[in-house]
């Protein structure tokens, strides 16, 4: 054989061997005593600031506090049932394909026991079947799309927060209660699934509750556009009574920056479905009277309780500001998992099997800083809560909310077995809970 051929063969063999070695090293872990939890959240890109990093800071604060046994009852055992927790953090950036790969790495290479993660709806939809295949209990902690449990059933996948339908329903209810004479409304939403679904839900609710209200224009700027000059001009010209928007993060800030000096909000009432995370940054650019949602009774809408005080304190120590709704979402995930784990463990001494934790988690009711969470949809895998909306007012240079109204879950959640949009279109009859 020609030795050139041999050389190339040897090189390939070397590469394969090197890879095999790396694989072996990577998967050789010492016996793990703590419970390893993988956290997948945005650490880069536009979603990192408002959602990803607050979720990470909340998770770190919660894990530290739980490991020290400092959480209020009934969560005051150390870690989960006495076993300490260990957090592994992965960046959610890079798209759905990347996240599927990373989930496999998390479970098979880094040997995590549970996964809590996913802010982007696209990522949630993509990883759910993979979590099933990997037989790893995965909690989707923040994504909004109702599709996860309305299009499929899962054994290993849970979501400990309500999906986005209630944001639209409650937003419309609150709007019509405070401003019943709405004759026209417009929308400005980012042109991707979240924005499109928000708008579709809102228009469906308005059509059911106030069919006479006319839609003037639906602006759909590109996600991350940042430049809303023409959109604002178009909105100004329509002279709508109401403007609905699911803009968030930097895009929302840019929009407010550009719209406020142009007196858009003197003409139109603004409804911000997901406006809460950056309220504290928008002082001076958030006109009084804006209707703001926090995707649940989170953040500024969280009612006083021992758990709420606890979260606010441990988060403020780490982040220097009070927690926003992604922090609450992550808290719900950790506390729900802790409750299920400890219920499955019962009086036993060993770690409960995943199947037992799943059985305990289904249809579980547990307390959280945002109030009571009940896993009643998606065959026990999807959480339902009520929600709240309020109106902004600037007091002493800070943006606060007033005129807060709470909506119980019967009014804002579709019942089991009925798709959200169908429920809305058929009149939103309260289900039996």
């Amino acid at each position, binding site marked *: 054989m020609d030795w050139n051929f041999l050389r190339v063969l040897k090189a390939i063999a070397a590469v394969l061997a090197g890879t095999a070695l790396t694989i072996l090293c990577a998967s050789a872990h010492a016996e793990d005593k703590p419970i390893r939890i993988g956290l997948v959240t945005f650490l880069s890109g*536009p979603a990192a600031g408002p959602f990803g990093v607050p979720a990470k800071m909340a998770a770190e604060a919660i894990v530290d506090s739980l490991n020290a046994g400092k959480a209020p009852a009934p969560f005051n055992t150390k870690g989960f049932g006495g076993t300490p927790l260990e957090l592994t953090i992965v960046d959610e950036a890079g798209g759905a394909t990347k996240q599927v790969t990373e989930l496999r790495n998390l479970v098979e290479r880094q040997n995590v026991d549970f996964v809590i993660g996913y802010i982007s709806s696209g990522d949630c939809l993509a990883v759910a079947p993979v979590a099933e295949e990997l037989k790893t209990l995965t909690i989707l902690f923040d994504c909004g799309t109702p599709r996860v449990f309305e299009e499929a059933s899962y054994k290993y996948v849970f979501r400990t927060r309500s999906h986005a339908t209630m944001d639209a329903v409650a937003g419309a209810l609150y709007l019509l209660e405070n401003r019943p004479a709405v004759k026209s409304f417009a929308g400005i939403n980012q042109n991707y699934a979240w924005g499109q679904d928000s708008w579709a839900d809102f228009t469906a609710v308005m059509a059911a509750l106030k069919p006479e209200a006319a839609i003037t224009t639906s602006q759909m700027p590109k996600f991350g556009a*940042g430049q809303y000059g023409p*959109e604002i*001009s*178009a909105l*100004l*010209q329509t002279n709508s009574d109401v403007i609905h928007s699911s803009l968030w*993060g930097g895009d929302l800030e840019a929009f407010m*920056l550009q719209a406020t000096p142009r007196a858009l909000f003197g003409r139109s009432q603004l409804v911000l479905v997901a406006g809460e995370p950056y309220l504290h940054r928008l002082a001076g650019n958030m006109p009084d009277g804006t209707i703001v949602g926090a995707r649940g009774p989170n953040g500024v809408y969280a009612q006083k309780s021992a758990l709420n005080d606890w979260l606010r304190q441990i988060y403020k120590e780490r982040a220097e500001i009070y927690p926003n709704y992604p922090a609450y979402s992550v808290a719900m995930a950790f506390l729900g998992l802790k409750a299920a784990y400890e219920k499955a463990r019962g009086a036993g001494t060993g770690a409960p099997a995943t199947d037992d934790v799943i059985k305990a988690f289904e249809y579980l009711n547990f307390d959280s800083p945002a109030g009571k969470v009940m896993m009643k949809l998606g065959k026990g895998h999807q959480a339902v809560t009520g929600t709240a909306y309020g109106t902004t007012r600037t007091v002493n240079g800070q943006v606060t909310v007033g005129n807060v109204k709470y909506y119980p879950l019967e009014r804002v959640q579709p019942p089991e077995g009925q798709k959200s949009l169908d429920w809305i279109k058929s009149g939103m009859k309260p289900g039996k809970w």
Partner: protein
Amino acid sequence: MNQLVAVLIDGLIYSSWLFIIAVGLTLIYGVMKILNIAHGSLYALGAYSAAALAGYWINQGHPPIGSYAAMLVAAILVGLIAGPVIERGLLRFMYGKDEIVLVLVTYAVFLILEDFIKLAWGVDPYFLYQPYSLLGSFDVGDLTYPVYNLVLFGVAVLIGVSLAWVLTKTRRGKMLVAVIHDREMAAAMGINVSLVYFMTFTVGAMLGAVGGALTAPMISVQPGIGAETIVLAFAVVVIGGLGSLPGAALAAVLVGLVRSAAVHYRPELDLFAIYFVMAVVLIMRPKGLFSVQEARKI
């Protein structure tokens, strides 16, 4: 009638913004034949530095009118530091290589700078709204526009006119144009091509940073703004014809008006607007609107 006026004004404002961010890129490509993907990072660096410096200025209690100067100073500093570092420190060693390899180099620089920005300024967006609202607003019909947008328009015109003047009326400028047309002949004629490259890249970097600095008061300066602008800048440059200044201006106006019209009349087409224009222009004029004549080499 009112809506048409709105379309025109919005279009011109957006065009000004596009022109400012694209002009540095077309200069760099025209002279150095490098597709500078890092231009997006320079834009982001300019925005962040302007927000930081002007924000600091305002927070220290100095008169807000000075924040404009602070923004400009920040942008120029970014250009003066980042430009030479990238060009002398990295690109200089890669000139002989294939064009496409240079693109990969600028992409690697872009990745590195993105994380550098994240490390330096964190992931939370920066706010700098005072310069935007400071100058007040003016009314056109029943629409209100901030005066700052006029400033944007003015700066775009200023940059365009002064660059055009430099390129056609000054000796240095004419040497630059010579290098754009034919690098080898220019070198044979005794032009210091290496120095021209250095100056061009630095000026291009400054222009990119200025674009970012001027945009900072209008937006929320956050991670990822660089990536979004790259494609827009490229599209404008390609539509206009690479290396052509009047081309970039005309392309910016075209794209701005088309986008504005889309937003007012058919908002759901906004996503396609720029790519549609690019496809149509390239189909009709394969080398862009104004392309530099190139001799065919046999």
